[in-house]
């Protein structure tokens, strides 16, 4: 079975302009307002927000469990190598789209009359299985989820494969349900509070499995989760043998999961956090991008002294919602204007001697390399090259002087920009600190200082 990923830069899930209404006539109420969201292959997306904010509704729309009323939802079909649209399709098409998705529900909803393995088999029946004995697959997964013959500390225990739900604990039932959702290796997992009923250890096992299904994690990263009970505290831990099994189970990668949760332990591991309020997506943050921008801003003296919350707010106002490893598409750029600028190789970003005005900006390099040049009489002296995470343009803004150097793109470059008004607002907050820096800068205005802070 060949499973393809979408073309580079394209999402596995695309939600565009989705509105949804409950009820009819007088009681018709809008519950979703113009929601737009893209999820890239292998992302683990956490959806957060107060209850009633529409998280679950949007999840059921994506899963094809409800009829899409307005807007567009497309789900990538890895077997077919194409998107499947959910708008205006019949029941049959929606049923076949549902088979692409692994659903983890808040309640386990297992059949009392079936054993753990039989309950999982119900899902396996829907898809041709790679192995002749599908139970092997199901057993491996249950074993990884601590329901096999070995417990977390490697001691023998009675396996629960052939137990019926009545003989299982609440957490064990939920783990069977999770195994049922994941056994067909769906490329998209929709989960509603998957770890709510789980103890810390199995909760961590579930999340780690989702992470590993998304993309292969370095062994070292996983090994950090093998720790003693004391060290782990409430965060849960994995066993040595689980990691080996994890690698077998999650041999295929590229699974995207959309998880509605309030579990802080999971939030820390998310790739993207989508926050909803009153039926709207209020923020859609790629965690890596947020870290990248925050780290970049923290290094700049202009922002180093402001409160961490202010820093975060400023950083979040720059985010474009794309992982810093990936280039930005024009439509993504247009969706959040004024945050990011893109330059072709050779293009000048700022020119030495340009006066500072209201349109002058502060720049943080997201991708690509720039060179910093200064005119020395007749020749042009190349001062330095700068890569992602470095910033430039703040000296002119701080001193209210013309630009003291030229910055030119060497490769395709993407830079986050902060306009002068915003810059000045924060500058006033950090004034004492900045003054000290400026003092420094004025006294020792040397090429070395320029190098760092053109």
């Amino acid at each position: 079975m060949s499973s393809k990923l979408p073309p580079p830069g394209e999402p596995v899930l695309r939600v565009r302009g989705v509105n949804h209404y409950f009820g009819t006539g007088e009681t018709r109420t809008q519950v979703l307002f113009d929601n737009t969201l893209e999820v890239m292959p292998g992302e683990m997306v956490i959806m957060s927000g107060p209850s009633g904010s529409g998280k679950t509704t949007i999840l059921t729309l994506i899963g094809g469990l409800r009829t899409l009323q307005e807007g567009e939802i497309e789900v990538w079909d890895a077997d077919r190598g194409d998107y499947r649209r959910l708008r205006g399709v019949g029941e049959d098409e929606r049923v076949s789209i549902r088979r692409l998705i692994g659903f983890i529900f808040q309640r386990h909803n297992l059949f009392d009359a079936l054993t753990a393995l039989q309950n999982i088999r119900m899902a396996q029946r829907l898809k041709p299985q790679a192995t002749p004995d599908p139970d092997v697959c199901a057993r491996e997964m249950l074993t990884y989820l601590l329901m096999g013959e070995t417990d977390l500390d490697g001691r023998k225990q009675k396996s629960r494969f052939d137990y019926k739900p009545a003989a299982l604990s609440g957490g064990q039932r939920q783990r069977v349900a999770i195994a049922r959702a994941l056994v067909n290796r769906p490329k998209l997992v929709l989960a509603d509070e998957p770890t709510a009923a789980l103890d810390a250890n199995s909760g961590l096992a579930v999340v780690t499995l989702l992470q590993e299904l998304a993309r292969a994690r370095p062994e070292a990263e996983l090994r950090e989760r093998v720790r003693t009970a004391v060290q782990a505290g409430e965060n849960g831990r994995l066993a040595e043998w689980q990691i080996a099994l994890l690698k077998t189970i999650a041999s295929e990668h590229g699974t995207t999961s959309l998880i509605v949760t309030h579990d802080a332990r999971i939030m820390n591991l998310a790739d993207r956090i989508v926050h909803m309020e009153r039926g709207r997506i209020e923020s859609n943050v790629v965690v890596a991008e947020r870290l990248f921008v925050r780290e970049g801003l923290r290094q700049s003296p202009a922002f180093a002294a402001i409160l961490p919350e202010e820093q975060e707010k400023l950083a979040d106002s720059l985010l474009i919602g794309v992982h810093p490893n990936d280039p930005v598409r024009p439509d993504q750029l247009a969706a959040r204007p004024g945050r990011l600028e893109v330059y072709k190789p050779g293009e000048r970003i700022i020119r030495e001697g340009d006066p500072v005005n209201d349109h002058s900006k502060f720049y943080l390099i997201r991708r690509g390399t720039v060179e910093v040049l200064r005119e020395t009489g007749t020749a042009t002296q190349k001062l330095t090259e700068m890569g992602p995470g470095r910033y430039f343009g703040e000296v002119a803004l701080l001193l209210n002087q013309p630009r003291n150097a030229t910055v030119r793109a060497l490769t395709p470059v993407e830079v986050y920009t902060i306009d002068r008004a915003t810059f000045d607002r924060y500058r006033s907050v950090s004034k004492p600190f900045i003054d000290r820096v400026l003092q420094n800068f004025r006294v020792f205005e040397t090429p070395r200082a320029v190098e760092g802070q053109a």
Partner: protein
Amino acid sequence: MRPAPVPLAWCNLTHDKVRFGLFAAGIGFAVVLMGVQYGIMNAMLDSNTVLIERLKCDLILVNPNRASLIFRDAVSSRRVEQAKGVAGVRQVHPVYLEYQTAGLRHTAADPAQRTHTRRVRVIGVDPAADLLDLPEVSPADWQRLNLPGTALFDRQSRPHPDQKNYPGQSVFGPLEPGIRTELAGRAITLIAGFDMGFDFGTDGSLIVSDRTFAEWVRAPLFPVNPLAEADLVAIQLEAGANVRAVQESLQARFPEGDVLVLTRAEMIAREKAFWWQNTPIGFAFGAGVLLGFIVGMVICYQILASDVADHLPQYATLKAIGYTNGYLSWVVLQEALILASAGFVLGMVVTLGTYRLLTDLTGLPMRLTPERGLLIGGLTVLMCAASGWLAVRKVKKVDPADVF
């Protein structure tokens, strides 16, 4: 490669053994209702045709006006002779029947024990013709029947209602070989017994020779020519003769319209149709069967609907992960069929027991032929499938979005 299917319907039903037992008992109850009602109906109709079934013949001549054996209309003896001339006919034998005028004196030897004289059905045949299929009667007994004033008696005659005080006695009194009593006022000796049974028209039968019949039964009424008319004419065909063809040529031989040529099966059907149409048996017991059917449907629907209701989140989950309405409907229908099978087996065991009991108690010939069993089975499946179909609508309405 798809893994083996999970027997979801079977597991759902049998998960709780006690509940499943109760379910099967519920459906079984409906099967018993249908089976017993249908059985009694058949027994009542069957009892009227036992005589025809026992006649060893291929075709029967009967007066078209004689809608049932109990009537008097008969076939002229001339027709007997005429039938002999038709190609394919091997033998023709008149059968004489008397329902109304022959009384059998109570057989008790002690006059004080005798109750009133009762009418008995008298069947007159040529003892040498081997016309009746009665394995209990030996050739020697048939031989002895040639003696005028002898009769074979029906051991299955209507039993005396007070079996406590008169064990084994019939309403005619004790019936044993050698008993002497009176038939139509003349002495007669019972020489051997046979098994036939009573019906709506009669409490029991005597078989006598045609000669005894003429002298004892008919001569008092028709002294000149007692055997001028035969009540039925039994026709046996040459080996290999085409029954239909002979039937048609016989019918063509009697254009006057005073004779109807029927096969034995047609004769049986005609007799049954008469009782079906002219008594409330069909309606009463048909309604009983219908009642059983409806009761069964309600029980089955309750079981299936509660199964769907109990498993609503599970069915919704199955829909959410990509099972079709068709699959879920099939699960419900499977459950209906499993219930039908379990209920049928259980119900039939009880039904058969009830048949035995009723036959012992009432003497009605309760018989379960394969066709009748098949009909009950078919009704059971239909009953469960119909309620399954109703329950399927519930499962179709399950909303997968409810599981989140």
